[in-house]
């Protein structure tokens, strides 16, 4: 089980990007991405746009573990849902502006991630997935039992959306989107920074060859726990914004199906691609929205089938496939220039 998921799909992640820092295409793509981010609520219903970004960051947090550390967490709903509840409680009881509540939720997610991570990293590979799944389910039961706090099956309703008295943001989903998007963007930047840092390099080393990383003097477990906590914080950030956007936190957020859905989004986007999470979220959320509005009830049939198909035939995911095509193209052109 020492061989990790990414190593076998030959997604040579450790390589530097094919586009050098000077390549103008890099900036064109970055600008295009930002433009999409800004224009999104013009194109689609703003709350759905917000959902895409939340699930996108959630998927990125999972990818941080799966793609860059080689750990499949199947219990990330614990942090997403835990933060959703915590954010809701802070916003309801203290009436603080929602970004503060969301940060509170993210901190809470990191706090519960510490013991869960500490225990889970004692196992690797498939065991890690099972242990995290079980711990998330434990949190689900706790939330279900603590009815006074969480509202049990009814969930936490009417989470206020205070924002320094600026009414447009508080009431209009369109303007709320931009504040929420800014928070998500911060989360994405954190993930990007983590991956492209010396710390991120060590994570890749831990993923590819834990024994060698240990021999080089790195405390493998500590690195795993640290990235687990960072990832939980990002998942918490996403979950908090999600709860405020819906003004609602429910047990659904803590269910293992939520953990599964985010893994689906991550794999669909492309493991180890970081940005793929946003693309995957765009596809899955719009698809679900479309199916729900067209009155189709068996969403599980569709998502389950997608899961089976991408795992069988499309393991690089959307972003991964696009990147491979681009890489081939660039390399070919370089080869031709040399001739």
């Amino acid at each position: 089980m020492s061989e990790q998921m990414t190593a076998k799909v030959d997604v040579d992640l450790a390589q530097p990007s094919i586009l050098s820092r000077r390549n103008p295409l890099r900036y064109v793509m970055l600008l295009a991405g930002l433009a999409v981010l800004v224009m999104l609520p013009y194109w689609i219903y703003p709350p759905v746009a917000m959902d895409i970004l939340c699930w996108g960051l959630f998927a990125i947090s999972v990818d941080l573990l799966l793609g860059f550390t080689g750990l499949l967490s199947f219990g990330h709903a614990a942090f997403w849902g835990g933060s959703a509840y915590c954010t809701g409680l802070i916003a309801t009881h203290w009436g603080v502006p929602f970004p503060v509540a969301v940060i509170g939720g993210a901190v809470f997610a990191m706090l519960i991630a510490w013991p869960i991570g500490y225990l889970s990293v004692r196992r690797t590979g498939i065991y890690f997935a099972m242990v995290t799944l079980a711990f998330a389910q434990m949190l689900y039961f706790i939330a279900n039992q603590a009815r006074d706090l969480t509202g049990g099956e009814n969930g936490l309703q009417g989470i206020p959306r205070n924002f320094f008295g600026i009414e447009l943001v508080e009431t209009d989903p369109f303007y709320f989107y931009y504040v929420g998007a800014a928070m998500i963007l911060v989360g994405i930047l954190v993930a990007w920074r983590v991956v492209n840092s010396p710390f991120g390099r060590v994570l890749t080393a831990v993923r590819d060859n834990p024994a060698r990383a240990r021999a080089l003097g790195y405390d493998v477990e500590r690195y795993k726990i640290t990235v687990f906590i960072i990832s939980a914080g990002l998942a918490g950030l996403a979950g908090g914004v999600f709860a405020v956007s819906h003004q609602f936190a429910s047990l659904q957020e803590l269910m293992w199906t939520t953990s599964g859905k985010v893994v689906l989004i991550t794999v669909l986007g492309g493991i180890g691609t970081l940005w793929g999470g946003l693309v995957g979220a765009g596809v899955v959320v719009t698809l679900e929205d479309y199916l729900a509005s067209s009155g189709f009830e068996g969403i599980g049939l569709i998502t389950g089938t997608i899961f089976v198909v991408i795992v069988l035939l499309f393991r690089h995911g959307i972003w991964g496939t696009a990147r491979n095509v681009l890489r081939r193209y660039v390399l070919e052109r370089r080869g031709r220039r040399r001739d």
Partner: protein
Amino acid sequence: MSEFIQYTLQGLAAGGFYALSALGLAVIFGVLGVVNFSHGACYMLGAVLSAVLLAELNVGFWAALVIVPILMFGFGVLMERLLVRWLLELDPLYNFLLTFGLTLVIVEAVKQRYGVSGLPYQVPAGLGGQVSVGSVNLSVYAIFACLFSVVVCVAVGLLLTKTRIGMIVRAATEAPDRTRALGINVGLWVTPVFGFGIALAGLAGVLAAPTRAITAEMGSNFIIILFAVVVIGGLGSILGAVVAGFLVGLVEAYGIAYAPTYAQIVIFVLMALVVLVRPSGLFGREEVA
């Protein structure tokens, strides 16, 4: 005291369902290296199938006890041949994800076909009612379910340790390449073993049908507790799966009886303790990380 004995029996009966399913999970993992997420869904399918057989073909419990595992064996064979097989060479996480997707499909399909409310199923004739031992009233069916699962577990244990088939399967688990070198076609064994594991889950489903609510969701929580069972027992270990299955059944039953609020949580606390003290599980071998 009499209550305590009742709870113990209930725990052992529930533990029987866990032990049988965990045994299937462990056998599949041992030979294929696949953690089958859809095991809970297969348990559910076993229960639903026996209810449907009764309602539409008037096939009773005893016949279902034989027919359903055979059907599930076929289902498992199809699953392995059509889907799981293609990912065996890759990291086991891929098959974990594949079977997760399959779970969503199976559960949703059953939900669409049979609705979300429970299907009816009665305790079979001859096993209903209670038997009094001194001052203690015990459910006959619970005694039966408990004994039956113990017998099946022992039978599987004997099959694996005392027969030639068992020897081949164990050899294929431990050293596939060397087994191949000895002239045994390991690839040929993979499919029936997978089917066998699924059949065990289906059998647990049939056993659970008379006492549990038969719904599409009945496997959802089951599979996660099953994961806790195999983490506690050690996934590589057959004995561990069975012992941990009964242990978790007991813990759950006492939890429901004496601390209903924490019943579900206690199992995961137990798992956390095992992971903390003995990461490879009670009966597991040390992992080579």
